[in-house]
């Protein structure tokens, strides 16, 4: 195991070391000590390695991740896993705003709560939040799935395109063009698989969830509005 102590080396040195790894590296297990909430930890990784952050992380932790598994053993700041392409990001504590923003792929698991705008503009990532999500989550979500075991705040899925939102608890309100939708077998299967991937096999039942998605009324220009121009 490679250990990097951020009390002794800088974040830039850490990220440079991680970026220099070849895809077939044998140094596949990294542990980062004393993160101290620093920003941009383990960003832009592109190798099948595991990086454990031993504490709280600042902004954009594991942003742009490809292939790697990044575990934050505390809370994560704004934009954790932002624009990730693949791999897995696991936050053991809470995540701040815009978790998984614009992410194209991979899996983001948050053991605690995520605050406002979780999954904003998500483009294919799967996000599992074991706690609750704040207001405006999945705003303009385009693809992928957001699973919330707790509650969702105001305006869930506002202006959503095609992502699938599964919420077990209460939804404070739905955003524009977001509606509750039927849970079909394909959705139950997807949800079951995501819960299993998040390590929740056997702990919660898919029947307890409701699905939300796009009413698709904002997709096309409405001719009745033509006079406005």
């Amino acid at each position, binding site marked *: 195991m490679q250990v990097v102590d951020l009390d002794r080396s800088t974040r830039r040195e850490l990220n440079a070391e991680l970026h220099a790894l070849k895809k077939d590296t044998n140094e596949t297990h990294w542990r980062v000590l004393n993160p101290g*909430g620093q*920003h941009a930890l383990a960003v832009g990784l592109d190798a099948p390695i595991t990086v454990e952050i031993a504490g*709280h992380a*600042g902004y954009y932790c594991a942003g742009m991740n490809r292939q790697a598994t990044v575990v934050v053993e*505390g809370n994560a*700041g704004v934009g954790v896993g932002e624009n990730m392409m693949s791999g897995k990001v696991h936050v053991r504590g*809470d995540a701040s705003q815009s978790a998984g923003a614009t992410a194209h792929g991979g899996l983001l698991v948050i053991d605690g709560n995520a*605050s406002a705008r979780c999954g904003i503009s998500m483009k294919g990532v799967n996000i599992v939040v074991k706690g609750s999500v704040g*207001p405006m989550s999945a705003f303009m979500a385009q693809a992928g799935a957001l699973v919330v075991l707790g509650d969702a705040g105001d305006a869930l899925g506002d202006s959503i395109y095609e992502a699938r939102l599964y919420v077990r608890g209460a939804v404070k309100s739905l955003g524009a063009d977001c509606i509750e939708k039927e849970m079909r077998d394909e959705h139950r299967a997807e949800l079951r698989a995501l819960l299993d991937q998040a390590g929740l096999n056997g702990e919660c039942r898919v029947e307890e969830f409701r699905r939300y998605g796009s009413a698709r009324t904002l997709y096309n220009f409405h001719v009745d509005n033509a006079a406005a121009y």
Partner: protein
Amino acid sequence: MCGIVGLFLKDRTLEPKLGSLLAGMLEVMTDRGPDSAGFAVYGDGAAAQVKFTIRCADAGGVAEALGTALGVDVSTTIHDTHAVLTLGAEHEAAARAWFRAERPDVAVNGAGRRIELYKEVGLPADVSQRFGLESMAGSHGIGHTRMATESAVTTAGAHPFSTGMDQCLVHNGSLSNHASLRRMLVKQGMTFETDNDSEVAAGYLSWKMRGGATLAEALEAGLADLDGFYTFVVGTENGFAVVRDPISCKPAVMAETDEYVAFASEYRALAGLPGVERARVFEPEPARVYAWERH
């Protein structure tokens, strides 16, 4: 962008360390606000006395002239460009009138039984050092690092702002209805020293509390009346509160232990606090007032 920090101690044995803990937090927030900094510390106070924190060229001379004019004893502690003048609480109004009439060059940062309030242009670490924050003791303190975006880099524009006895506010954000609110508050008898939007927020809360509201009630009312982006940290003689606008535009993170409640714009500023690894670290929710009081 700006950085704000706050520390409210529950454990009295930590009080001698308040200044050094706050100084550490403030310095980490330099990245968010390198052009000026300020802080308020709630330290010792005597019931029958009032402390004025003033800034001017010859604080010693001001204290002596004030004492002579009012015929009272004024004790003075000089901290670089600032001074703390302590006198009998019954002379507060007379002292304010004297400053206005005789020494308009004197800026009163704040006044109260316990508050001392310092602000200056420069890097936060330099500002802390000039005023000796490191060695200050107290029950709670609030700090701000400023990156001016819409008004000049001046001492007067630095936070915290104090518009009532023992009250102060720091703000990250910007208000859009501060001009109309200021007109309303001026009609209600409030006075303002600057054109700064954050001073209007402070004045609004002082006005509410003057009308009998608690700190938490004043902030609840502010959620309806203040329009714009804000994370506020507010101090009163015994209280400490945090509120964010309804869309949580500006960052905030808190850590609570049995010993303290701490606030910062980013977790980095909390990372050096004693026992923070055992703290409950959480993000304050939008449009929710968090308030603590010590008796």
